[in-house]
């Protein structure tokens, strides 16, 4: 097991360098010049431009710039934002809890609904519930996020006035963010109604962000379950006189979890991509919105550093998923 982890960690290195390069290149191939953007409407003189160019190091060859970036990254230095002048690292971790909170809620939403839905659909294969669920999943999967978000906002925030449209909590509450997780902080603040407000702000973004993973997980669970239900050991379980709940929920599901865990792992990438859109729509102050804003500002260090951190996170999640396989099905550990 340890060897396996180490060998997997080794494969991280080339991937990591590749991701560093891509994140570095990505923002630079976009048209637009960060110095011009920073100067804004007023514009600036040739001399001032050259001065700033030298200050940011844009006058040096591109490979020198990359080398400096890479050595910085290796030492844990992602540079400072052009705009706020604060270290990218600090900004990232100030905003990250908001994204993590939203993504975690979306993932919990997707798993808690998707797993049982997939299991029930598989057990009732071909019946009404199965058909209805699979068509709904297909719609959910192919629905454009922004359209879905607008629809929910119009119905639940507009017509019904049940949920707020944007932000993480109502402005009447104010407290120090101890953890950065609004659900925890609002509870800890002890202010009446703060937690409820935080929850109501979370509901729509969670649904919007969780819809695609939900559809993917439900479909994957169903097909994995269908495969497993035909296996000999399920017949053995039935020959033992076990209840259908035990057979489906324990004997079959445990085996079906492997492919499901895989899509859950892959969904983390989708989720972070979806978070960018969702956060923008709901003015959710997380790294998604931060990245979008920074792209518009051509804030090179933020965009390249943020991308890199997101990519590393996805890699860590994938590694964790690989480890989980062996825990769930020991047969896989043997390989």
């Amino acid at each position: 097991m340890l060897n396996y982890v180490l060998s997997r960690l080794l494969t991280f290195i080339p991937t990591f360098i590749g991701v560093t390069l891509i994140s570095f290149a990505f923002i630079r191939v976009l048209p637009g010049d960060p110095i011009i953007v920073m100067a804004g409407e007023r514009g600036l003189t040739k001399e001032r431009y050259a001065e700033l160019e030298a200050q940011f190091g844009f006058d040096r060859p591109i490979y020198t710039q990359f080398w400096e970036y890479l050595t910085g990254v290796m030492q844990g230095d992602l540079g400072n934002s052009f705009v706020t002048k604060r270290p990218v690292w600090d900004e990232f971790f100030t905003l990250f809890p908001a994204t993590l909170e939203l993504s975690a809620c979306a993932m919990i939403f997707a798993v808690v609904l998707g797993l049982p839905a997939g299991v029930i659909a598989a057990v009732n294969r071909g019946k009404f519930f199965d058909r209805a669920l699979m068509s709904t999943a297909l719609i959910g999967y192919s629905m454009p996020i922004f359209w879905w978000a607008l629809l929910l906002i119009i119905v639940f925030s507009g017509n019904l006035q049940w949920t707020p449209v944007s932000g993480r909590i109502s402005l009447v509450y104010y407290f120090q963010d101890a953890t950065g997780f609004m659900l925890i902080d609002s509870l800890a603040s002890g202010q009446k109604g703060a937690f409820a407000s935080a929850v109501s702000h979370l509901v729509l973004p969670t649904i919007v962000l969780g819809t695609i993973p939900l559809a993917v997980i439900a479909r994957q669970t169903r097909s994995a379950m269908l495969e497993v239900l035909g296996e000999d050991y399920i017949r053995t379980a039935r020959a033992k006189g076990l209840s259908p709940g035990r057979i489906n929920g324990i004997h079959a599901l445990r085996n079906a979890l492997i492919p499901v865990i895989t899509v859950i792992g892959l969904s983390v990438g989708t989720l972070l991509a979806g978070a960018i859109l969702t956060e923008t729509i709901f003015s959710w102050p997380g790294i998604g919105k931060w990245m979008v804003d920074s792209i518009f500002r051509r804030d090179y260090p933020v965009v390249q550093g943020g991308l890199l951190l997101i990519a590393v996170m996805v890699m860590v999640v994938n590694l964790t998923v690989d480890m989980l396989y062996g825990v769930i099905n020991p047969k896989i550990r043997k390989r």
Partner: protein
Amino acid sequence: MSLLRIRNLSVDFATASGQFRAVDAVDQDVDTGEILAIVGESGSGKSVSMLAMMGLLPWTATVTADEMTFDGHNLLTMSSAERRKIVGNDLAMIFQEPMSSLNPCFTVGWQIKEALRIHLGLGRAERQTRAVELFEQVGIPDPAKRLSAFPHQLSGGMNQRVMIAMAIACKPKLLIADEPTTALDVTIQAQILDLLASLREETGMGLVLITHDMGVVAETAERVSVQYAGQKIEEQAVEPLFKTPYHPYTSALLDALPERATERLLPTIPGVVPGQFDRPAGCLFSPRCKFADATCKSTAPKPCSAELGHARCHYPLNTDQRIAS
């Protein structure tokens, strides 16, 4: 009254190309402590008939019977919840592929203790003791340690022993063994059969041994039921069956035994068991039977009397009438 009594059992499968009758009007009786062998080539409906009795067929199967009772319970009318109290408890079954019949995600100990908990409600410590005991009984060396093994860490023979231990965990009155040795090495096959026979001695349970190996039948069984294309075509006690088979198919199966082969090559029965699309009119064995005549090809034979082993044949072998003709 017999432990298991089946009358006129038929099983139809709904397939993409229509109904398919896999088991056709089969009668079967098993007494307490008896070993019944069901023999027949692949596809003759041996497994399906027993799975139907256990209630383990998929929903595509339609099971009909005049009578199907086990130990005083009517298997035809009982609810699935009632059936679950019997299946895995008084009525157990083991399968052909021990490797794939155990769940790869759980230790064999967990799997055997599950049965003990569900049916007998044993506590944790009792389950451990009983599981070790059962593993000892089926000849698994170092049982306490083996309990924490996963199926993939054990050999096929060991896994079949685990399956047997699991099946006899609740002291069943009847054990169905569906080709328990087919997937195993020859030496292991003999060991598993010996184990089953000795367990029968110890526990007094009835044993139904499904096999396509007449050699196994000769060594283990007391009574033999021969199935062909979903029908029971003959039934006798093992000795008379080997001495005086009445049905030509039984006779052909016996001729295929290695020790009876007169030449170097094993005589096999030409042709295959008819499937869904090539079911002949008249006697189902007629396309392969060397005695077939026009009557055989047009009229399906009814089972003969018990003295003639219920043979489904117009012209049973080894009879006076036959000798005269």
